[in-house]
């Protein structure tokens, strides 16, 4: 524990709070204990309401320890407290120690305790007290005592876990990860501005919308019975139209979305049916977590994927898979949002980390896909995006596919071309970027030999045999991209920029209309700096799209048609119900 001695104080912290979906937390109580002196602080709801600052130091000489600490820092922000300077989040470190496996006892604090062989409070007892906290105040003195004891039991657990984990923790980089948990709390507190009025209308009219959507699409297919998709009718439709369809091992028609998507490429007539099924299955409007202030606040679930990226709930988060639903994002009056994303982040990471000069040249050209086609001799050196759109498109798909280690069969299916065509494209990629391929293979070899791969800041994937080499080959791009995103979020939130949320390789920021241009410029500068640190000096540029009130957010090429259709149906249904 010598390393902890270098801090003047080390505080293990836990809050209890209630937080309805989409709202900010209402703090119920706080328990904190200093690790060395064992000084214990227990503060109930009423006292917390009067405190302007935390009851312990939070400067650079203090280390604050918590488990999944973005929740704790959300409480700090709710109370109007300054966030601590140094954070050690044992959830992040537990995850980092075992990333690549699935601990039998789960990733929670209870699971962590059990993993290290400690007893813990029974799950049912924990659930009972958690429900009491979620219920919200006012509390009797007995209830508050029980809640403080419960909260303290988590602090006790933290101390146990800290002691046993400390020798395994790379402290400076752990504190670096903890820094991101503070940024997460800033983003979760800010949330994404939602057009509440339209959301209410959609929720009100969702049943008639669904019926109308089905009726308008099913006219051409005849595969629905009321609201139910009938497999036998779909089989009859396929036979009528001579469309071959993959089956599952049990011989039934494969009806998963991937199959529909693949088939829609070969048989575009299927597309509307696929979109409808997707919309019906994915659109769970009631689960979208929007607070009374019109902000979508969903737990970002940092470090939840193998690459370390965030993994927020698809249903609660507005950037879930239903692309068209993002039209609900709209800044309030006088405000603007900006979607700032890195330009071809993964490609740049691959070029910088592999030190492949040809790949760097392709990136620097501004259109790496066309440049790849030129390098491979598939198009003349004077070719442009306009003069050779088909070739560029194929080379683009190939270039992106190689980053995911796609096979020739997968690429052929994606391009809807013969396997030989895909094989040839992949071979050209190997021949054009041989340094990248050697580096990529080296990463996989290293993972298999040493049992792990790690990012520039030590986020680690552990391999235990049977790992998918394609997934391992993709890890450096994904995981270092995640590092870059985390660092940019830290720098931007600390600079006072309001980040609504991160979205894969993009950041959604918000500012007053007259300040948005400056905010975008500052964000881009920060993203460049983050890229430079992660890639050891290589610049990574970004693009920005600004949306000012009353405009809505909408992806460039996806979702608009569906949005327009749903909006029209909802408006009509609303008018009808208002004027019977």
């Amino acid at each position, binding site marked *: 524990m*010598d*390393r*902890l*001695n*270098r*801090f*003047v*104080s080390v505080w293990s912290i836990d809050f209890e709070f209630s937080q309805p979906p989409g709202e900010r937390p209402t703090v119920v109580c706080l328990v904190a204990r*200093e690790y*060395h*002196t*064992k*000084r*214990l*602080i*227990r*503060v*109930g709801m009423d*006292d917390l309401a009067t405190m302007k600052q935390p*009851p312990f130091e939070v400067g*650079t*000489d*203090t*280390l604050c320890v918590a488990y999944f600490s973005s929740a704790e820092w959300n409480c700090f922000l709710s109370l109007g407290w300054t966030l601590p300077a*140094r954070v050690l989040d044992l959830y992040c470190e537990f995850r980092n120690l075992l990333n690549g496996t699935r601990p039998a006892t789960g990733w929670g604090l209870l699971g962590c305790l059990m993993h290290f062989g400690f007893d813990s409070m029974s799950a049912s007892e924990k659930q009972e007290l958690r429900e009491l906290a979620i219920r919200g105040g006012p509390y009797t003195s007995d209830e508050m005592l029980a809640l403080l004891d419960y909260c303290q039991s988590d602090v006790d657990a933290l101390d146990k876990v800290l002691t046993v984990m400390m020798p395994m*923790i*790379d*402290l*400076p*980089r752990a*504190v*670096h990860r903890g*820094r991101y948990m503070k940024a997460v709390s800033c983003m979760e507190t800010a949330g994404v501005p939602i057009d509440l009025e339209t959301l209410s209308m959609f929720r009100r009219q969702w049943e008639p919308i669904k019926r109308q959507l089905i009726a308008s699409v099913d006219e051409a297919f005849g595969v629905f019975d009321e609201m139910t998709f009938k497999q036998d009718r779909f089989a009859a439709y396929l036979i009528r139209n001579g469309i071959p369809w993959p089956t599952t091992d049990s011989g039934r028609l494969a009806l998963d979305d991937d199959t529909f998507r693949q088939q829609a490429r070969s048989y575009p007539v299927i597309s509307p049916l696929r979109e409808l099924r997707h919309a019906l299955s994915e659109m769970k409007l009631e689960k979208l977590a929007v607070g009374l202030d019109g902000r979508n606040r969903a737990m970002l679930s940092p470090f939840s994927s193998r690459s370390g990226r965030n993994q927020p709930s698809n249903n609660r988060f507005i950037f879930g898979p239903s692309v068209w639903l993002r039209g609900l994002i709209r800044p309030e009056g006088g405000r603007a949002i900006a979607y700032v994303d890195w330009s071809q982040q993964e490609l740049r990471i691959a070029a910088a*980390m592999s030190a492949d000069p040809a790949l760097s040249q392709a990136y620097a050209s501004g259109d790496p896909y066309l440049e790849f086609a030129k390098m491979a*001799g598939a198009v003349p050196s004077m070719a442009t995006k306009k003069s050779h759109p088909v070739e560029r498109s194929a080379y683009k798909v190939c270039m992106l596919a190689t980053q995911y280690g796609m096979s020739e069969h997968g690429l052929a299916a994606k391009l809807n071309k013969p396997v030989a065509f895909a094989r040839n494209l992949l*071979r050209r990629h190997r*021949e054009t970027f041989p340094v990248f391929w050697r*580096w990529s*293979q*080296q*990463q996989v*070899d*290293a*993972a298999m*030999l*040493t049992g792990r*791969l*790690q*990012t*520039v*800041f*030590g986020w680690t994937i552990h391999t235990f045999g049977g790992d998918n080499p394609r997934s391992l080959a993709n890890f*450096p791009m994904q995981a270092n991209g995640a590092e870059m995103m985390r*660092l940019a979020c830290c720098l931007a939130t600390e600079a006072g920029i309001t980040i609504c949320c991160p979205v894969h390789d993009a950041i959604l920021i918000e500012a007053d209309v007259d300040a948005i241009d400056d905010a975008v410029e500052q964000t881009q500068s920060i993203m460049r700096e983050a890229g430079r*640190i*992660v890639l*050891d000096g290589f610049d990574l540029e970004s693009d920005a799209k600004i949306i000012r009130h009353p405009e809505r957010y909408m992806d460039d090429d996806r979702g608009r048609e569906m949005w327009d259709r749903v909006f029209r149906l909802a408006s009509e249904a609303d008018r009808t119900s208002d004027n019977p």
Partner: protein
Amino acid sequence: MIDSNNPVKRVRKNVNKSVADPLPGMETQAGEALPPNTPPVNVAVATPDPPDKPEPVDPFDPASLRINPNTAAGAIGVKRKLVTLKVDKPDKMEFCRVHPGEAYRIDTAIVMDKTNRESYLVAPALWPELPDFITLVRLCVAVNRHGTTFLWPAKLPDPNGRPMDWHTSMLEAQELATKSWVRVQADMSAGSYAVFEATGNLPEPEWTELSLAELLKLAFKTRFIDSIHHPFLQELFGEA
């Protein structure tokens, strides 16, 4: 608020934190240059006039935390080891190249086992004893478009007989393959091999680092005949 403040003031153990050491905690990976800890309390240290205080270094500065991926993973080298080598003419579907170096070809003799589609390399000393069995060939080191190395045999014309188009066309294909990617396919009506040259802008192949002798050893392993008592010869002679 309950504060169980311990009356004993915490004493920091073994660390005499100086003003110039603002670093609360530091843990490094091997090889990283980071500020050292100050010495323990009891260590006597001669203290000359202090120089100008260095700028405090933030141990959590991301730039100083960066792990060089080349030292993390790149130090481990893995390369493909050639353990087998095919001896055959190229498939009619594959383009290939022949190593242009003279040191990567040899005119020699082999014995064909047509039943098992295998060939045996024969030591020159035995050639006079096996005139009815050996075939004179030119063995070239070649590589296909998948990067697979193989030995490409082409029959040499019988010095005492009429040159055959099958043989000469294959030898010419080998020669052409030293400069460009070629594919060969039997043309029965012409009685020779049709040779196709790739017209695309294809890259140069990557050649093996092994010598011809090493490649021959790999290719023929147990199929090198250096004695008249070799089991395959005994089989040929009807002695086994």
